[in-house]
């Protein structure tokens, strides 16, 4: 069976960008094995860091449903070359080795902290403009490491973690996304609080306050520190888990309801 899935409008690091990706996933998750052609003719712009989420979805649909995926070559070569450069679309050419503003899509086992750190140091922060900011590099590596440690401890998954980024030199903004397909924020926090925390939105707020589900050791400083760091440095920070898209860049409301995907997605957008 073959199906063409046409994405609508832009796929940005926003609640509406997420909705488009989750709609894509939901339209295929209960289908028999299908060859799915990703049609991008209606799309003008993709935040390349969203390839972490798209990559996680495609991998899940491939492994669990037996789907396979293809793209129209002319659309990729013409407007979405970035998907080759960041390795989302596999190619034998040297495009993926080009060390420009693209940051490769990569996956890591949750215990592979060494591989993750190498990626962060050499790929995500490998751009010449970022190498000059030694303090930013040091702080960013620390915060990304805290995130990875948090996922390693709490995601409860043996599946790989997906990461991808994008550096926008003109705007001097670095986007980074990390996606795990684990249990998400709510189940362990609901269990730990004996049901006091009942929604994904409450669970995210609870974690941002510096709480931890660990009973045998203190904890909870990593996410809170990152939240504070983003506040002090005009960075944007999104946590998407369950049906909640939380962000410090979403105005006074602070969150949006979305269709749930599994696990947790975190986006960081730093000015640098």
């Amino acid at each position, binding site marked *: 069976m073959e199906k063409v899935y046409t994405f609508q409008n832009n796929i940005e690091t926003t609640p509406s960008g997420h909705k488009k990706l989750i709609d894509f996933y939901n339209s295929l998750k209960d289908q028999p094995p299908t060859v799915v052609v990703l049609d991008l003719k209606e799309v003008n712009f993709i935040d390349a860091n969203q390839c972490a989420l798209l990559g996680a979805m495609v991998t899940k649909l491939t492994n669990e449903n037996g789907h396979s995926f293809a793209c129209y070559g002319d659309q990729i070569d013409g407007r979405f070359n970035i998907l080759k450069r960041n390795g989302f679309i596999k190619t034998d050419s040297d495009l993926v080795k080009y060390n420009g503003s693209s940051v490769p899509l990569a996956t890591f086992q949750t215990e592979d*902290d060494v591989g*993750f*750190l190498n990626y962060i140091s050499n790929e995500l922060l490998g751009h010449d403009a970022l190498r000059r900011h030694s303090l930013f590099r040091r702080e960013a590596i*620390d915060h990304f*490491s805290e995130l990875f*440690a948090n996922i390693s401890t709490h995601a409860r998954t043996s599946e790989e973690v997906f990461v991808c980024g994008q550096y926008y030199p003109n705007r001097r903004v670095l986007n980074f996304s990390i996606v795990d397909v684990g249990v998400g924020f709510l189940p362990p926090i609901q269990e730990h609080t004996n049901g*006091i925390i009942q929604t994904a939105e409450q669970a995210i707020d609870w974690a941002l306050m510096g*709480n*931890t589900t660990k009973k045998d050791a*203190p904890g909870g400083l990593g996410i809170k520190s990152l939240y504070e760091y983003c506040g002090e440095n005009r960075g944007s920070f999104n946590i998407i888990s369950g049906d909640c898209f939380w962000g410090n860049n979403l105005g006074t409301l602070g969150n949006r309801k979305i269709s749930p995907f599994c696990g947790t997605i975190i986006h960081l957008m730093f000015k640098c």
Partner: protein
Amino acid sequence: MVKIADIIGKTSAILHADGLKVYNYLVEEILRAPKIVVSFAGLEHCTTSFLNASIGKLLMNRPDSVEKISCVDTDEMLRAKIEKVRSNALNESLRQAHDESVREYFEA
């Protein structure tokens, strides 16, 4: 001297699981030695997750060990993290008050 990099066999201390390896080492060491010097030499990065599972857990379970442990080969950023972890681990009444206020916030 306890050199963390030697215990975990890595140049960065990131994971909770690695913190627990150090905790297990320190728990035994503290029974033998009156003072322990913990060296962070050779570590490029260190997370609070790691520190909570190692030094934080030790201080939470054995608050008396705070007088016996000293951390060396640290820079300003790492010292700030260690201090946060230390305060968080030692101040049980603060933790309880925090938990209580959070519970009230979400139950309201």
